[in-house]
């Protein structure tokens, strides 16, 4: 306490303190506009304060970290303290997502918004049950309808909870597919298809039944 800050006691706390307090009472990320509106700070001051808070709540020095995620700012525990937090809460983590669920999310993220039929087609299997589960977990949402299709089926999109779960600031905060997929592997697939005469599994001939 080297600096005197009597103003704090009199109800004019500094910018960082105001933001800190608001973030403590919000389990969800708070957008910059919401922060500005609650704290009545000018944007430049708020940004500078957020930067200072980022240093203070950094993953190297603190059990609480400031995350910039899902379009906002959030205080969360440092994953390095995971064991203590989980011992304290004495509860099972929600079951991790299945491989199929990750595939469906990847479809919607990279090819979406997509209809259920679009997801099924991309994966080559019926994914309705997986989609239902992801809607349940608030990781997917029905956002609008595809008016070009008969019956105008619902379009699926990823949610804010999905961005949170993935620790992403926004939809754009994911590497492009081109960066993830190995070109060599793609050409191997292409070769295999064009060179593939026989099918790997002989399917039963049900034509006569």
């Amino acid at each position, binding site marked *: 306490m080297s600096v005197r800050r009597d103003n704090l006691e009199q109800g004019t706390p500094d910018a960082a303190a105001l933001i800190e307090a608001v973030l*403590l*009472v*919000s*389990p*969800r990320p708070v957008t910059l506009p919401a922060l500005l509106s609650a704290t009545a700070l000018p944007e430049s001051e708020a940004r500078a304060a957020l930067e200072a808070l980022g240093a203070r709540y950094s993953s190297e020095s603190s059990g609480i*970290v400031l*995350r910039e995620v899902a379009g906002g700012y*959030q*205080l*969360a*525990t*440092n*994953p390095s303290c*995971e064991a203590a*937090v989980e011992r304290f*809460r004495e509860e099972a*983590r929600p079951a*991790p*997502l299945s*491989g199929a669920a*990750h*595939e469906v*999310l*990847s*479809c919607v*993220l*990279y*090819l979406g918004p997509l209809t259920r039929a679009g997801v099924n087609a*991309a*994966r*080559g*299997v019926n994914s309705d049950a997986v989609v239902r589960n992801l809607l349940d977990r608030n990781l997917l949402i029905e956002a609008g309808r595809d008016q070009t299709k008969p019956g105008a089926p619902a379009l699926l999109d990823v949610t804010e909870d999905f961005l*949170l*779960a*993935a*620790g*992403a600031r926004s939809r754009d905060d*994911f*590497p492009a*597919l081109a960066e*993830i*997929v*190995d070109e060599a*592997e*793609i050409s191997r*697939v*292409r070769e295999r*298809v*064009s060179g593939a005469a*026989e*099918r*790997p*599994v*002989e*399917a*039963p*001939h*049900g*034509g006569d*039944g």
Partner: protein
Amino acid sequence: MNTEKGEPKGRTLASFTIELDVYSGPYEGLLALILKDELEIFEVPLRELVSLYRNANPPAPPGEAPGALERDTDFVDSATSLILLKGRALAPYSAEAEGEDAEEGPSPEDLEERLVTYLKIKRGAEALRERISGNAAYYPSVHALHPRPGRLRISPNRLATAARRAFLRTAEPGVGHLGTVTVTVGELVALIRSALVRGPVSFEDLVRDMDRLRSAVAFAAALSLAAQGRLTLTQPEPFGPLTLEPPK
């Protein structure tokens, strides 16, 4: 559901009835419908089916449920067959082979595009998995202020739907009744591959001396090898004899 208190024990598979979105009635009826192609296998939620079975036939202490082991293994047998059928139905290649000439499927270009897209999706999914698991240990502040009473809206309709969904779901199946699993898919993969060195082998021959559990695991091993293209499975008709062949 026939879960009358009086006699939950000593029943056979014939008395197992199920209640699924796509079908309700005796389990054997479901099998018949699938075999007669009147019900699409991929409409059948196998996991839910297993849950229903476990729920209708809770594990009982040894000696208290005569016939339970037989019934359980019968169920495992038929369920693994369903899994095989389902795997087939969902395999990208088999769907178009049904009823059509093999050559009449999508053009190689279409197929190539589909596979490339799928490959990308798959790699994207792997990246997502890593990212999501890397972010799982951030716990948010729980010092939330409750919103002013009345700001949160909960729809009674959604509650009713949720109740329906929750009450129709059944508990995760226990596997305690199967005893200790002493065999792994890996072991049986090795066994199958060494058998294939001498040429095609029928599944029946392969599992002749195995107990029910081992043969179920062998089934899984064969499926996984087939999926990797390391063997070919042929079965002229559903539930007919199954032959394992080395890859061509």
